[in-house]
């Protein structure tokens, strides 16, 4: 029995042509992925509470997110782009004036809240009679990354009070700031596209 020793052959370097092709392909793939990220999804994250269902096809109504319980407690979020002209206090005051003076809603309270990512916001609690029945209506507003995030919740008063914990849970799950590693790289336009 003889032992054969194969001499060690150094691996052949990849041809230059192939390397030249790989680099643009990688770039293109990255760009495509980034653009896909920009094109779909929404600039916030929210978790739908158990007992609620997120609704599809609600964008035509101006909402970016909408969920409902079987009884009709509705929660929604809409994003207003480029609304960094004023700070949170301005929008809070504007909403209260609009709801009270123009729409005749009773303003019950304004509460300081914080989103899941730590962004400070304001929750305005209103009440109004619809067809002679009392309803509760909450508007929560966050200002982040040049956008305004408006989260709404409403239902007949007894129903709302029964589902208050679920509404609060959903609202607390809202994230309005990007927390991924790519955010500093992809700048503000892509930062909030999950």
């Amino acid at each position, binding site marked *: 029995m003889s032992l054969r020793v194969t001499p060690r052959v150094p691996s052949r370097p990849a041809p230059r042509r192939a390397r030249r092709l790989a680099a643009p392909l990688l770039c293109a793939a990255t760009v495509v992925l980034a653009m896909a990220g920009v094109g779909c999804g929404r600039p916030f994250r929210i978790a739908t509470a158990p007992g609620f269902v997120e*609704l*599809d*096809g*609600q964008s*035509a*109504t*101006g909402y970016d997110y*909408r969920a*409902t319980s079987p009884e*009709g407690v*509705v929660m*929604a979020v*809409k994003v*207003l782009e480029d609304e960094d002209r004023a700070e949170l206090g301005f929008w809070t005051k*504007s*909403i209260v*004036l*609009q*709801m*009270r*003076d*123009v*729409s*005749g*809603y*009773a*303003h*019950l309270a304004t509460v300081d809240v914080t989103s899941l990512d730590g962004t400070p916001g304001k929750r305005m609690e209103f*009440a*109004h*009679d*619809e067809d*002679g029945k*009392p*309803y509760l*209506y909450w*508007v929560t507003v966050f200002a982040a990354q040049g956008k305004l995030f*408006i989260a*709404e*919740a*409403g*239902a007949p008063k007894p129903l709302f009070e029964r589902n208050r914990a679920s509404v609060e849970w959903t609202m607390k799950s809202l994230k309005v700031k990007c927390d991924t590693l790519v955010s500093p790289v992809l700048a503000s336009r892509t930062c909030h596209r999950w």
Partner: protein
Amino acid sequence: MRTRRTTLCLIVLGALACLQGCGMASAESAPAMAPMAPAKSSAGAAVTHEELAQADAPAPPPPPPGEARPGPAKKEAPRAGEPERAAGDGKAEVAREHLIVYTATITMAVYQVQPNLALVERIAKESGGYLSLRSDNQITVRIPRAKFDAALGAIEKIGDVLHRDVSAEDVTDQYVDLEIRIKNARAMQTRLKQLLEKAAVKEAIEIEKELARVTQELELLEGKLKLLSDKIAYSTITVVFAARGSALQSASRVRLPFPWLQQLGLVNLLQLQEERTR
């Protein structure tokens, strides 16, 4: 020298006579202003200041919130243990208060309207007042003016007040004018009755016509005085459950040009769109 003294005496006497005349004129022209009470006299009879003063008049109302009552010093109801001033006291005559009609209109947010309407009515009744008008989203109550301030405060606590309008109208001149016209009409009526007793048939027809006209005018004036007395004795509070509306709002402040603000509300939120079939 004697002529000078006489002239001086005459001047002094003349001045005194003038002063007395002025005083009398003012005493006659400024009738007694007693706190008003609801007209409780017999139907059709005018309520004079004296009658009102004798009636169980409510205490003068507190001034409307945030403002002092204009006019001369108020005649306050005597406190327990404090002797009441003599009716003939000249200072008391001067210190008669102004007659003021208080009216308040409160606009409240549209929330729990029916229970709140009932609550407003209850507050009015508990204050000794009464319901004047009630509709689906509006209520008008009359409150004794002494309890106007307290009742208004209680009503404002029941909901979110969007707007508040309190007015105080001084009707002293109007009241005094009516009283004088009634007094004159009565005098004329009495005189005509006296003439009628002595008149011949032809004259009697003319006098009766005039008497009928004067009596009609007297009834009209008495009715007006009764109404005015009621307005003074009972303040009016109207509560409206409604949005102030864009017209009123635009008068008070600039309408913000953000369309999304107008889209906020339960109507849009609760109107769910059909999902596409999967």
